[in-house]
């Protein structure tokens, strides 16, 4: 059976990481495996806190990042789930572990903020920002299909940028609807999801839509670099009030597509 790895820490984020991992397992028809990286020397109180989760926990050894990445690289592992430790403010710079894992792993990674809103039950509504590049769209395609298959509502959000915006917009009241239909067909498939769009700062608008839609998941393609689109990913991770699923895209292809303005 396929596996979702929940990498928990011995703090207050652990229950939500585990809960989100279970949700993803349910979505993907997988089972959840919980891992924890012991610090050196081990903290005896940590074991007690982890025991409260009521889950079998596989203990890993330092170094933390490599330990989690190695575990995620295993056969049958679909994705990892990790807490996003940071300051409990509106904007939370990512912790070093999350940063390390997301840049090293080749597998999808769900990053769970410490104060994630509770959304019991399966994923009900996912916001999927798409820039309109083929690479980014391909990266999220399978997940979008899984979400739709699980009856989740998929809200695609596109923020107009110079490289990806239509060069002409004759009559917004007519054209944007037509553009949106075509965008969905091209980038997520016919009859899948609905599209909303924004102008202005990309990350800010994505977070705005995610909040307005009361989304319980944001799905982002991720080129594993913090430049260009990666800066948007970073900002969304820092500001999202809900888990963010990062789907690695082909970085070389992403760069080429960005250069071509596709």
């Amino acid at each position: 059976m396929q596996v979702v790895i929940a990498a928990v820490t011995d703090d207050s984020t652990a229950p939500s990481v585990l809960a989100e991992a279970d949700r993803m397992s349910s979505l993907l028809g997988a089972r959840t495996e919980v891992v924890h990286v012991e610090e050196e020397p081990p903290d005896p109180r940590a074991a007690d806190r982890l025991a409260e989760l009521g889950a079998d926990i596989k203990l890993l050894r330092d170094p933390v990042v490599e330990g989690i990445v190695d575990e995620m690289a295993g056969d049958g592992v679909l994705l990892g789930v990790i807490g996003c430790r940071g300051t409990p403010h509106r904007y939370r710079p990512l912790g070093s572990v999350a940063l390390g894992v997301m840049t090293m792993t080749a597998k999808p990674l769900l990053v769970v903020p410490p104060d994630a809103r509770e959304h019991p039950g399966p994923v009900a509504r996912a916001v999927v920002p798409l820039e309109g590049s083929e690479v980014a769209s391909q990266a999220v395609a399978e997940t979008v299909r899984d979400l739709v298959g699980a009856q989740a509502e998929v809200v695609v959000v596109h923020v107009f940028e110079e490289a990806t915006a239509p060069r002409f917009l004759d009559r917004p009241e007519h054209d944007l609807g037509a553009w949106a239909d075509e965008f969905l067909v091209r980038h997520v498939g016919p009859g899948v999801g609905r599209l909303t769009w924004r102008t202005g700062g990309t990350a800010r608008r994505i977070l705005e839509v995610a909040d307005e839609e009361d989304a319980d998941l944001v799905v982002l393609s991720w080129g594993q670099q913090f430049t260009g689109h990666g800066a948007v990913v970073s900002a969304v991770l820092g500001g999202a009030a809900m888990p963010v699923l990062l789907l690695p895209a082909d970085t070389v292809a992403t760069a080429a597509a960005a250069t071509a303005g596709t």
Partner: protein
Amino acid sequence: MSVQRRAGSDAGSDGSPGRLLSGALTDRSFDAIVFDWDGTAVTDRAADARDIRRRVEALCDAAVDVVVVSGTHVGNIDGQLAARPRGPGRLWLCLNRGSEVFAVDEQGPHLLQRRDATAAEDRALDRAAARAVSRLAALGVESQLVSERLNRRKIDLIPLPAWRDPPKAEIIELVRAVESRLRAAGLGGLKAAVDLAEDAARDEGLAGARVSSDAKHVEIGLTDKSDSLEWVRDRLWRDGVGPGLVLIAGDEFGPLGGVPGSDSRMLLASLERATVVSVGAEPGGVPDGVIQLGGGPARFLEVLDAQLERRQRRCPPAVDEDPTWTVRLSDGPQLERVRESLTALANGRCGTRGAREEDGDTSRPLFLVGGVYTDGSHPHLLAGPRWTSLPVASTGEAGNTWLLDLRTGVLAREHDDRSLRTFRFASAATPSVLALRAEGNAAILGSPVAGGSPDAAAEDDAAAEEQTSAVVGSGSGGGICMARCTWTSRTATRRTVERLAAWQGDLEALPDQAAVVEELGRARHLGFGRLLMSHRREWATRWEHTAVSIEGDERSQLAVRFALFHLLSSVDGSDEAAVGARGLTGPGYGGHVFWDAEVFVLPALACLRPSAARAMLEYRVRRLGAARAAATAAGFRGARFPWESAGDGRDVTPREGHGPGGRFVPILTGKQEEHITADIAWAALAYAEWTGDAAFLAGPGRELVVEAARYFESRFALDGDGSAHLRNVLGPDEYHVSVDDNCYTNVMARWNLRRAAELLAGEPGGAAEAARFVDLAARIADGYVPATNRHEQFRGYDDLEPLVARDVATPPFAADLLLGRRRTAGSQLIKQADVLMAHRLVPDELPAGSLEADFEFYEPRTVHGSSLSPAVHATLLARLGRPDEALELFELASRLDFDDLTRTTSDGLHLASLGSLWQALSFGFLGMRRTAAGLLVEPHLPSRWSAVEVNCWLRGAPVTVRADHSTVSITCSEPAVIVRPSGGTITIEPPGAELPPDKEA
């Protein structure tokens, strides 16, 4: 003239009868078959020709044109062939080695054309032949002048009893004997004899003499088979049959004794795309590209049988793949719906998107009827019954190629592995008829006929037929009714399908289904072949007086032809025409009619198809009542036309919609784009000026112009200083809403008032109103600032944030998408030509020299965020004498739909952009402008172009304007008054002339 042809096939050079023909002959349908007679169709002049006669008549029955090309006379050919075809295919006899053409019907042959030599030419031919005989004799070669045929003289090089009448089968022996005889006399061979005859002809003043040889004879003539083929080429072209649809057959293409075979004269460079086969022995081989079949007349009969079989199986016709007239598009799931728009077929009354026959979830198949809308407050063009769907198993995401033939209005599809081919058209000759054929592997192309369908278990050639009908109601009593008949047959491995459909649509009443079924019956009686012939002929006729050519830039030329194709497809020139912003190519804008129709499409059609432009105006004329009601409801007089309209002429502009920021925003275009009322008046007069339609101008045209002026008279408000203002309006630059005194709107209204005054002034009781209009026009504020010699776009515009486009991004870009609506509205960035649009439409309303100042100011501020914008600027740049800069914008406009730059081409083509592309070419680069004195032509060609030629209609007569970098030529059928840039005029008499230098310029 001989020509290097494309690489040929080696199919069957062994001459064995019954050998399978190559795919080039069995997989392709030819619409015209041209063949040599003696040696190709028959073994000799005494042979029984019943087999060929039967096939020729059957081919004509099947809508194939058949042409016999021979050196002999009609008595010989008709006496032997004796075919009496009933049509629709024509039988032509091109005889006497290029000097005569006969058409043959059930009554027999009728002379169509004869080249009559002058007495001087006849004497020269006699002298040349005698001189040749004499020179041969001087060398010791006995030859004999054996006949004096029409326009030629025939010299027998071997007048010996043993070679009196050698059969074709002995050609090799004949050549050997003649060469031996000539060489014995010290002559180099047959080639030397031909050279000798050419010299003799030249010495007698026949420099252009055609000298040929069939080995036994050498002939000196005024014409040869190349003249026949030129006639055939031109005749077929006028009927929409291009060279790629022609099969040429002969038996002597290769050299004989070093002399090109007589049939090589049929290899014209301009017929390069034709398929050429030789059934002769061809001892010297065949030229490149000629398929050598061998086998003589028996093999030729096989070739004809293969063509007849294709017609019996109703296989899809071919497309003439002329790269200057065809658009080739490939698969691509991302651009599926874009391709469907690009390849939409319309006939002015209905339109069908180029959806693949299997439809699919990324496809948007759609059948629309012009002017038939749904009911309700948000009407849109009604989606009619689909007629192109077939049970096609997936051919995968790649491998399909679509060919849109602009010249004949057909769409063909072919899979790389030939597992599927389809062909369709919306009849231009009979707009209520649609036709489709398909051919494919039985595993790919299923049976579209329910029940009784032939299947694998059935015998070969099993066929089935089904007739169905469907009605779609509009919700307001109107609707679209369609009846269709589908025929299918299959062999063990292949299936073919033919579908004919007839339709009727009506906005107000549901069409009579029985009448549609009757229409289908008539179409079936005519048959696919005859329908296709008339369809192609109609398109060829349209192009005859509308074609454009751009020498030195095939890409731009194809783009303009593509634009013209869709413009001409959008309106059929009868009744009225509601031309939506996407025409009949897609559902975009619900098919609503905007100013796009009058300002961007109509001017092109007024020059290209005046009846179509008139039908567009009739749409407005019939909705004058609604426009008057709208004016009254708003508290004004006259007629106020809607920004968006559909069936009944009400304003159907949405009141709110999603804005660039994704939020619902109010839509003010319907309330504020007042200029459309003047735009329609402008279009009415532009039409009248180009066509000279006095009846329209005196009647409905006058009503449009005067009623529009009355609206503006009541709409303008006078200030205390007596100046007139139009407040709370929206100009073409839609980034700035609710402005006062938009320059474009006010200038157009002023122009409208003045033209209306001119119309009223001569009418009883009209003088007072005319005087009021003139007075008001003089008071209108237009933003002109004498100190700068430019216009302020609207009051307060100059105080806005002074952004220029390149501060934000490289144009074109949609500023509202990048900056948001509010920021954009607070800046001087403009969406499209506004002040400059006034210069474009009514240049005489603006002060001299202000175009330059306005252009310098507004061009940097224009982001070209509207698809209407680039070609307008291109037109003005060309007029300003900056054609190379203009070309950049022209090319941008030409790629707008091809490259899906709006990302909405999937919703249909941008018809206004297509119209303005033609306008940029004609009104910009060629500098054509209709003035009171005549046609002004002031070209400014880009350096990359060597010449431009535009065909159009001017005051009821066809005119061709051609310009290169130094000359202008006019071709006309009626005297044409041409206005020179310096202001003088010159009258060009038919058939036309090159204009002398404009010395005063």
